[in-house]
């Protein structure tokens, strides 16, 4: 692991921020305070953070319906997001988008997306733009990344995008987060190939990688390789991360599709945050107390964000009519 202490703390802080953000939403959703459809990212934090820690604001990502983790990892403002999910006019999207449509193009975050599979073509376009902009002083291209689930990978748009990325040699990357379920369906059913998701991407002509998505180091180091390949102009790539979804597809989901003891097992063995803690403390890269301190900071950040969201201005009827066009 080549990460500095600072880097490790930063990665942990981001992962923990996502976790606490989501755990909080999980509780608040029960109370009915939050409107709309909210899909929690808990369990998959190492993927978003392990990917996005390599990126700058000039690199783009396109996210999914399960987008909070990607947004936070890409640097979207915690409070702005919380306000958005609360539907405030101070939210990152003025309360117009909500959980499924959070975006911040200044941060290179081109949007969560309620349409499964819609992101990959958009990322390919962003990658075409990066290619047109050319390499920087270090001979590196900017990249564009689409996150995709194991369900979204069956949507025609995702396939078209992979082929088009290869044809145009665009610096695009598809990150497949295989959390084993699309809603209530197992990926073993819906992804028909005898092999895995990455193997399909490979058949499209992409260079592919695979790694354990609950192991931050594995994600991070794999992405280093992926990005080296893509930034050098060698064309698009795909990577499949095996990961876990800690909650239901939506809140209230009875999760009857889970195997016996599955929830306990993944919480015990496949918790990327627990695993990170264990690895870095055992390797004496960080002390437990360092991490505890981060935990406290994060807890405060989230608590402050919620308080701010609760207190924030509500939108008014007139707000409905703005932002449809730039130029009316």
């Amino acid at each position, binding site marked *: 692991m080549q990460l500095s202490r600072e880097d490790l703390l930063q990665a942990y802080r981001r992962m923990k921020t996502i976790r606490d953000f989501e755990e909080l939403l999980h509780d608040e959703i029960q109370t009915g305070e939050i*409107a*709309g*459809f909210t899909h929690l990212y808990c369990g998959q934090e190492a993927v978003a953070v392990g990917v996005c820690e390599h990126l700058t604001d000039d690199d783009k990502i396109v996210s999914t319906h399960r987008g909070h983790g990607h947004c936070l990892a890409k640097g979207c403002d915690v409070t702005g997001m919380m306000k958005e999910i609360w*539907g*405030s*006019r101070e939210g990152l*999207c003025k*309360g*117009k*988008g*909500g959980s*499924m*449509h959070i975006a911040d193009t200044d941060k290179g975050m081109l949007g969560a*997306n*309620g*349409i*499964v*599979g*819609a992101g990959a073509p958009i990322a390919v376009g962003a990658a075409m733009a990066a290619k047109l902009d050319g390499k920087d002083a270090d001979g590196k291209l900017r990249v564009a990344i689409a996150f995709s689930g194991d*369900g*979204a990978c*069956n*949507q*025609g*748009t995702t396939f078209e995008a992979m082929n088009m990325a290869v044809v145009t040699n665009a610096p695009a990357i598809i990150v497949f987060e295989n959390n084993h*379920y*699309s*809603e*209530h*369906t*197992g*990926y*073993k*059913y*819906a*992804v*028909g190939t005898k092999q895995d998701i990455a193997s399909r991407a490979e058949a499209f002509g992409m260079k592919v990688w695979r790694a354990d998505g609950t192991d931050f180091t594995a994600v991070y180091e794999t992405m280093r390789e992926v990005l080296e390949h893509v930034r050098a102009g060698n064309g698009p790539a795909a990577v499949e991360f095996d990961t876990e979804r800690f909650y239901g597809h*939506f809140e209230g989901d*009875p*999760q*009857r*599709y*889970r*195997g*016996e003891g*599955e929830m306990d097992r993944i919480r015990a063995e496949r918790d990327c945050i627990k695993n990170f803690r264990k690895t870095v403390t055992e390797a004496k890269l960080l002390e437990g107390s360092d991490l505890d301190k981060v935990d406290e900071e994060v807890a405060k950040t989230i608590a402050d964000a919620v308080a701010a969201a609760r207190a924030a201005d*509500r*939108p*008014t*009827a007139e*707000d*409905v*009519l703005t932002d*449809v066009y730039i130029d009316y």
Partner: protein
Amino acid sequence: MAKMMYREAVRNTIFQEMKRDDSVVVLGEDVVGGMGTDGGPEAIGGIWSTSTGLFDEFGADRVIDTPISESAIVGAAGGLALSGKRPIAELMFADFIGVSLDQIWNQIAKFRYMFGGKSRCPAIIRMVYGAGYNAAAQHSQSPHGILTGMPGLKVVMPTTPADVAGLLRQAIRTDDPVIFMEHKALYAMKGEVPDDPDFTIPFGHARLTRAGEDVTIVATGMMVGMAEKAADKLAEDGIGADVIDLRTTSPMDEEAILDSVEVTGRLVVVDEAPPRCSLATDIAALAAEKAFASLKAPVQMVTAPHTPIPFARELESAYLPNPDKVEAAVRKALAYN
């Protein structure tokens, strides 16, 4: 008569028709649920609970759980229908016509015409539409106007559990492709449903839910309730409104609208969709063309604004038509001389 929810009427009608006719087949995402998992099939029976128990009863060849591939779902419905089956495909949200429109618009709607009348395509595409859940711009839309405009499709928009049963059974027994639109905010609505296993409601026959002589209010789906509330309020002031629930927008019961406007001379159309090139304009245009002599006031259209659907509670409720807006439109129509 049995009391049941709108969603139960969907599920029960499908169940009964599958029992009756071996050629009826259901397909869609998570219509079984649990496929390929340790929990096994029937984990859910549709996220709207509109296909609960079908898999257990009819098996995997007739209750087909699909990957997330809406074009292939609708296309497969087309292929099933051309091969003599009666597929009922589900789009979990009507917004997903975006990823499957070609198969709806250029394929199933047109087969019979393009093939010179030599084929039959009895495919049903069920889709869940409408706002009210703060599900924002991509999960709340009402694209009935777009679909109504497409020659070859029949478009059904039931408002009550009984209408669900009668219209869905009619759809299943119809030889043309049918778009069957279920409003998500009506799923929990309860009502009496006739027990008759052959209860059908023919397409193109509107339902008059309130009667009055001062104004005609035309609506569909969730908007019918808005219109009724407004009518009830107006009735307190002695203003009588015909409230017409169209039930089907293609074919549309033009006569019901024109007959009513002939009496009232005033027309208010309520539509959950944005205003341009919409069902609202369709009905207003109908009146401007065919009821001109009867019209005593400008046609009033109560619609969503020309904006995407916003997320926040305050925004969505400002976005949607409601009884107050309908009432105001009626009063405006009545005030005109």
